């Protein structure tokens, strides 16, 4: 108890956290004083050893991890609960969304999905000039970044080429904000090369947007569609994900005597334990938390049976390399065909396992496999199925090595392709790489242009100039602006949290 008091005190008195951040961390500590949802001993042990992981979502899942409201409902009907009439003008529509976002829960408290903005706003734009549209989107964008400062807050545009999508791309390239994150849904049959070219130019400007392979995603979901949310998760609209659990494949490989033991015993065992963990968390949310007694359900922004469970894996690279070593094979993941093929086989086994294991209270009765992009404290465990940072081959070889994985990870998989600065003279190359990646089955295409100020870390954005500014000031100014505790490795050097962060990476307050 003394420890707990001390921990609470250190949060309350932290010099680097804002009052809102303190409240958030205090609430997490309070939640975690409750006993964990019931787990059997074996599952508990695997969780304690972090072979399986609950992303530190908390001991009492009283809200789903990710919520994707169908915002078209509040725009069409208004909200009785929020006392909002149905909007009639673009200003009213944007205002309605701005209000709606503050009522959408998530694991961090900040909405991870702000909707297919072009599709939502287009019906209100008939009498709005292009210049007015641009000005209004600009104010909206500024509002989002300043009041919902989280790099995991995600907007979608596309697949059509339209005025709102273009205005958003124009504003996003101009403001170069960390939030919101942005994905352009690309459909070669619908989108056209022109807007893909604009998106490619934006990537050169600010490493945004991500480009999603729309036909491939659409085929995995139903007619109500999907949304791209947070740090590359793909989930049903009007639903979301109750929880995200994950298996550390490296730890499973290290516990195996060799490839045969891995496939025959260790992997099936930890798959089973992770399913048990997942079901236990879903059970609490559905049966005990009373979450679904909410106006969100009553007004049909969300439907309880549209929430899936994300079944995550990470450290594929280390797992494959560990198994290669145990089998006395030299080839490394990402570079050697045999090693790559072993990785592809693991993904196929994972997909089959997820597909054949029923879960209660999950969309379609199953979890969805996810290539999980990491937490700030993952050490020597590469996100998802990625090739370890700094060792990646050229983008074409990179895509060829990883594309066979993509068919399996329906709830999201992302690779970061690094392209050098020469691409500034040749953005057409980005378009071509994107088309090539999609032709190979990539579900999603993300490029980091080396040396851009706004760069991606695991999947969220940081500004290098923020870090540089801090470095220059170090020693002369400390504790002036209270920004936060720590961010990812890159921003970890800051000792304080930038104004805009990725809260999901930091499941709790650290000392």
């Amino acid at each position, binding site marked *: 108890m003394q420890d707990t008091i001390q921990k609470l005190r250190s949060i309350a008195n932290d010099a680097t956290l804002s009052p809102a951040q303190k409240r958030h961390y205090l609430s997490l500590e309070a939640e975690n004083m409750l006993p964990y949802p019931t787990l059997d001993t074996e599952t508990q042990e695997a969780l304690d050893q972090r072979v399986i992981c609950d992303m530190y979502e908390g001991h009492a899942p009283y809200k789903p991890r990710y919520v994707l409201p169908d915002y078209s409902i509040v725009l069409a009907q208004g909200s009785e609960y929020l006392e909002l009439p149905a909007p009639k003008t673009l200003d009213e529509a944007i205002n309605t969304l701005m209000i709606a976002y503050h009522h959408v829960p998530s694991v961090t408290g900040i909405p991870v999905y702000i909707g297919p903005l072009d599709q939502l706003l287009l019906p209100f734009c008939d009498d709005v000039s292009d210049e007015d549209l641009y000005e209004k989107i600009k104010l909206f964008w500024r509002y989002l970044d300043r009041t919902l400062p989280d790099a995991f807050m995600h907007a979608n545009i596309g697949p059509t080429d339209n005025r709102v999508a273009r205005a958003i791309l124009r504003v996003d390239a101009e403001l170069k904000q960390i939030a919101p994150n942005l994905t352009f849904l690309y459909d070669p049959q619908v989108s056209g090369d022109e807007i893909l070219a604009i998106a490619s130019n934006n990537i050169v400007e600010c490493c945004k947007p991500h480009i999603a392979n729309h036909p491939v995603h659409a085929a995995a979901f139903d007619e109500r569609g999907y949304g791209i949310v947070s740090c590359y998760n793909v989930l049903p609209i009007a639903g979301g994900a109750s929880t995200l659990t994950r298996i550390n494949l490296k730890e499973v490989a290290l516990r195996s005597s060799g490839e045969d033991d891995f496939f025959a015993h260790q992997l099936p065992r930890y798959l089973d334990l992770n399913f048990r963990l997942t079901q236990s968390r879903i059970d609490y949310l559905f049966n005990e938390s009373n979450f679904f007694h909410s106006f969100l359900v009553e007004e049909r922004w969300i439907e309880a049976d549209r929430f899936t469970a994300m079944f995550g894996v990470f450290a594929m690279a280390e797992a494959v390399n560990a198994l290669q070593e145990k089998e006395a094979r030299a080839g490394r993941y990402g570079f050697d065909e045999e090693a790559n093929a072993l990785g592809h086989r693991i993904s196929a086994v994972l997909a089959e396992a997820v597909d054949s294991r029923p879960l209660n209270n999950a969309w379609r009765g199953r979890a969805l496999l996810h290539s999980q992009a990491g937490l700030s404290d993952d050490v020597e465990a590469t996100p998802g199925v990625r090739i370890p940072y700094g060792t990646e081959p050229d983008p074409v070889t990179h*895509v060829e090595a990883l594309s066979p994985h993509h068919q399996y990870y329906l709830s999201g998989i992302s690779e970061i392709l690094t392209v050098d600065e020469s*691409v500034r003279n*040749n953005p057409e*190359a980005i378009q071509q790489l994107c088309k090539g990646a999609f032709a190979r089955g990539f579900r999603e295409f993300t490029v980091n242009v080396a040396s851009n100020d706004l760069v991606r870390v695991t999947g969220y954005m940081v500004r290098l100039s923020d870090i540089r500014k801090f470095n220059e000031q170090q020693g002369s100014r400390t504790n002036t602006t209270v920004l936060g505790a720590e961010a990812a490795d890159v921003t970890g050097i800051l000792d304080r949290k930038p104004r805009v962060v990725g809260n999901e990476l930091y499941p709790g307050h650290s000392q």
Partner: protein
Amino acid sequence: MSSTRATVSKILTYSIVDGPGNRLVIFLQGCNFLCACCHNPHTIGECNHCGDCIPACHVDALSLVDGRIAYDPLACDHCDACLEVCPISANPMVREYSVAEILEQAREHRPFLTGVTVSGGEPTKQLDFIIELFRAIKSDKELAELSCFIDSNGHLGASAWENVLPVTDGVMLDIKGFDNPTHQALTGMQNVKSMESARFLHAAGKLYELRFLLVPGKTDSDAELDSLIGFVKELGADTRVKLNAFQHHGVKGEALGWEKMTEAGVDRAAERLRAAGIDNVATPAVYL
């Protein structure tokens, strides 16, 4: 399919600096210029099988078989020590490729490719191969949409250009200097043919880009830049001009003693061109 084969120094399946989009680049061995400032000098010479490189290879990937250099790509660890010792700036690791083999590579990477570029060396030294390759691409259903580009120093006559242009979409052409003694000192050759080529290609609508290498104290003078401006205006002020900056990366020999071109220097030159009404000026994104 004909049996024409090319001597190839290297093939890249990913290049974003050899023409528009992402390109398959075939670096052909051998050059008719001898530029001190060359950034890949090992592509200049053609192997005479002297065997001097054999002792330099620490993995025994090189040997003499019937008086000719034999190279074992599986043994090679790409340390490039053989390139360092070659007395004639050649490359014992070159491989011969048929048109069919290049087409196979293009097919394998087709979705990632905007086009194919032949570079070098001076690729037009192997013009017959280029013509056959480009012709084959243009008549292949799967590959026909790939654009076919040549990266050249322009040391080629009009009649030879006429043979290749029907199957060529664009040429990136280097002018190494406008003052002829300077050009001669830099390359060992006169610049007349290069300038004629630029005019010819422009008139044919195939000059994609005119390239000019800025070397401090040699080609960055006001007089040189004004000659460049005059020449571009003669072609047409909308000609795309790429200013390159002399750097030390890859360079061997005396040119390592030359000063590197700075970003500020390139910007100044670009400004001078723009002020003279030449709008389409590209500058390097990276300085190595």
